[in-house]
């Protein structure tokens, strides 16, 4: 079978035809255009070839550039260089890039609009988050964007503009759509909080407790478990259910201590937590031995705290009280009571 016309063309033949055409009047313009097109083809082949050799395609290279741009933009956003961050997010969005990068860029721009001071544009931030949530729902930026939308609804600068119902709906959306994402933990915590803050409204408080207890039952090791237990402990302390409150405080402490990356509750807050547990055990539950143990934790674990001396004396006092048999006298060998 004879070869086809295209396949018959050899490089030598092409050059000979081109030279002939260029020297033939009337065909010169067409020949020049053809030469230019050929040069462009050769150039693109060279670039493409180089790309193959270095393991990147043109699309990949531009995606890498966008990724670098985004990384730098986040750094500038963190350092509150808003103008530069805005430029870089814009640059990243302008060029060709991967599917997830526009979502990340829009999320970044949204945060920039939200937190830029004094020129914050909350409405525009909200629009960007909504676009990410709607058009890029499968990207990693989506749960973060929905969470930001929820926060915008939950905590506006003026309390009366707060849209608690919308916030609750968005929190639930995060929990249901992205249950294994870490923002789902935060959504659960904040959703519970929107109910628990109605102090005195028993139905709302019960609903908040249910949200948190359910989430803890399903994801007890979530990284915000300590915060959830603290919320529940505060609720039960308010209701006078002191033993349950102590259980949740204890669980909060354990969850925080077990976190693989170290404690999240600050040292001062930890001393306050231990002191409150100890005081509830001592004064409400009369469990002096256990109270002494919690007071001692301040002395031993958080020595450099203003509560140190008070806790030390209280621990002595509780040990002494714990040594008292029911209806009897304190143990004479126990340390003398000291109370500041």
């Amino acid at each position: 079978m004879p070869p086809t016309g295209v396949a018959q063309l050899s490089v030598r033949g092409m050059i000979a035809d081109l030279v002939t055409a260029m020297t033939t009047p009337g065909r010169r313009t067409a020949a020049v255009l053809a030469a230019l097109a050929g040069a462009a083809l050769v150039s693109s082949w060279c670039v493409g070839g180089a790309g193959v050799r270095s393991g990147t395609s043109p699309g990949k290279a531009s995606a890498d550039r966008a990724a670098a741009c985004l990384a730098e933009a986040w750094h500038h956003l963190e350092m509150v260089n808003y103008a530069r961050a805005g430029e870089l997010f814009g640059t990243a969005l302008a060029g060709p890039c991967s599917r997830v990068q526009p979502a990340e860029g829009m999320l970044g721009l949204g945060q920039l609009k939200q937190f830029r001071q004094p020129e914050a544009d909350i409405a525009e931030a909200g629009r960007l988050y909504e676009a990410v949530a709607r058009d890029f729902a499968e990207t990693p930026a989506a749960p973060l964007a929905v969470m930001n939308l929820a926060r915008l609804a939950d905590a506006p600068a003026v309390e009366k503009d707060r849209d608690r119902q919308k916030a609750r709906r968005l929190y639930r959306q995060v929990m249901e759509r992205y249950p294994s994402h870490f923002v789902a933990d935060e959504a659960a915590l904040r959703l519970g909080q929107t109910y628990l803050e109605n102090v005195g409204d028993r139905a709302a408080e019960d609903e908040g407790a249910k949200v948190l207890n359910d989430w803890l039952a399903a994801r007890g090791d979530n990284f915000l478990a300590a915060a959830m237990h603290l919320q529940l402990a505060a609720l039960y302390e308010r209701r006078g259910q002191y033993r349950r409150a102590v259980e949740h405080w204890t669980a909060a402490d354990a969850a925080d201590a077990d976190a693989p990356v170290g404690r999240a509750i600050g040292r001062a807050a930890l001393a306050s937590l231990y002191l409150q547990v100890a005081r509830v055990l001592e004064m409400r539950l009369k469990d002096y031995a256990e109270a002494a143990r919690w007071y001692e934790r301040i002395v031993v674990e958080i020595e450099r705290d203003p509560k140190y001396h008070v806790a030390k004396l209280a621990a002595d006092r509780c040990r002494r009280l714990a040594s008292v048999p029911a209806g009897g006298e304190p143990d004479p060998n126990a340390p003398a009571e000291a109370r500041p």
Partner: protein
Amino acid sequence: MTPRDLEKRRQRAGRVRHYVGLALLAAAAAWSATHVAVRSFGPDSDTALVAGKTVIRFAHWQLEGRTVDALNEACREYTRLHPDVAVRQIEVPERAYEQWVRTQLIGRTAPDLIELRDEAVWRNLIARYFVVITELVDRPNPYNAAPNFCDDPNLAGLPWRETYVDDMQGGFIEELRDHYGVPLSVFTIRCFANRDILRAAAGSDRPPATLGEFFELCRAIEAYAARRRERDGSFRLVPVAGSRYTAEIFGNQYWTPSVWALLDRHDTDLSGQLEEDERIEAVLTGRLDLATDPCIRAGHRALYDITRHFSAGFMSDQRDQAVLLFSQGRAAMIATGSWDAGSLWRQVAGDFEIIVFDFPVPAPGEPYGRLIRNRVSEAGARAGFPLGLTRTSRHKDQAIDFMQFLTSKRINERINEQFRWFPAIRGAAPDRILEPFRPQMEGVYKVFDMHLTGTTQLRYQNRYEEYMSAADPGPEEYRRFLRAAAGDRRKFLATYGGLARRCLADSPDRPEHMPFGAYVEAWRDDLYDRFIRAYAADYRECALADSQRNWANGHHAVVQTDGPLAQLRARAMREQLRGATRRNLAALVVGQVERVRQRANHRAAIERLRIAADVPPTGQGARP
């Protein structure tokens, strides 16, 4: 010469005078411009010395002793290490500091680093104009990994904040739930005394061990000063170098233990702290009467009695004036912080010897001994002199690097040795003279504030200053009082009010024979009653409104401080939630949620209180 000529001449002279004025103005402007140009661009100017370099500027108000020299030396060492960076410090006097900082921040001309102040009014400035460094302080300080900057290998891998003796709590802003400052030193507060004066006045250089002994010593010094003045009319000596600042220091030392007992009565959630809503609830429901509570009275009166031995007009004097009075030997004692130790020792070198002692606690049986039974604990002493990174800084990375340099173990130890302050970094050794300033672990902590921020604070400050500034009555006023007491009883009561009633209660038959000492004591009681009753009424009127405003501000701050959280979340998206990020994220969320909880509790408490106390809504004042 015709009147017209005269008029013309007068007009001409007037024009010449105008030109002279203009010429003088132009000359002054030219001189100023030249001066500024020479200072800015001359051969010895900063511009010439730092040409081509990145310049980091930092501002502070620590002008004591050798602070400026020591920091200059550290700056030079930093430049030797980083030849392309020059560091310049801007020393601003304490009195003008806040205005200066505000102006610079608002004008966007602020230096890269600014020393932060631990005051409520600074919270908004910090939230608005400074960079959050929470994530940064969770990473190690790279200088601690270099053997020439740190000889302790344990510090090398630790997060920056854990290299601090106080876990960098001094740079953490509680209300904003974030780290904003990088502190350099730790401070404690003590009394300083002139040993020579103590010997001459009291016959012993033993510092007072109790508050009663302190009062005795003050009286002995006053008697000694009076004796010397008889011989030498120009001799001036007071027991304590006073200033508004000194009064505050003494106030904290005696107020905190005096109101400690309130915790047992009003801490309903047993948190170990009387939170704002607990305080308001106690007052509005009548469980706590600010006007008559003995603890509150003891706290105020103890300070009032102490300040009677201060230099006259102390409430209008500043700290440096008090320090000068003491260093010149015209005051026997002063209360100040370890930050003044170095400069005081240098200033008085050879003139007299300084002894340092702790604030004396009243012994049982002494005045206030029943209610003030403890000292204030220093177990939680936080590091001070925190530098914050401004948002407008154009060299943030270099500025952070400079702060890490200053807080590497060796540099921090060295600058503090020169400052004669306690280093803030673990393992850094303090200067030998600081031994008496070592933090005392024993004692109680502050659980109760008399005011909330806002109107109550303003009113309290005004009334308190008026109270503290009042001078005791003299013999002439005493004689006038006795004459009135001997006269018409109704007129006496109308003129002297509470003081007259006290006098009549003591001796109803012969009030005109009231002794001078009893008169002064009754006068002081009456003065206190007027101050505290007026303030108690203010508190009842304003507390709820202030509290609601605080809550709204707190809510607003929660919104503002969500920024770093959102950024961290976004970063975590790409970094798969690295350990440090995760920890920060958790800390932020815990803190913020805790604040939201407090806010919610607070709002509910306000509603409950309003119903309980039948207080009208915000802004309408108390019911008649």
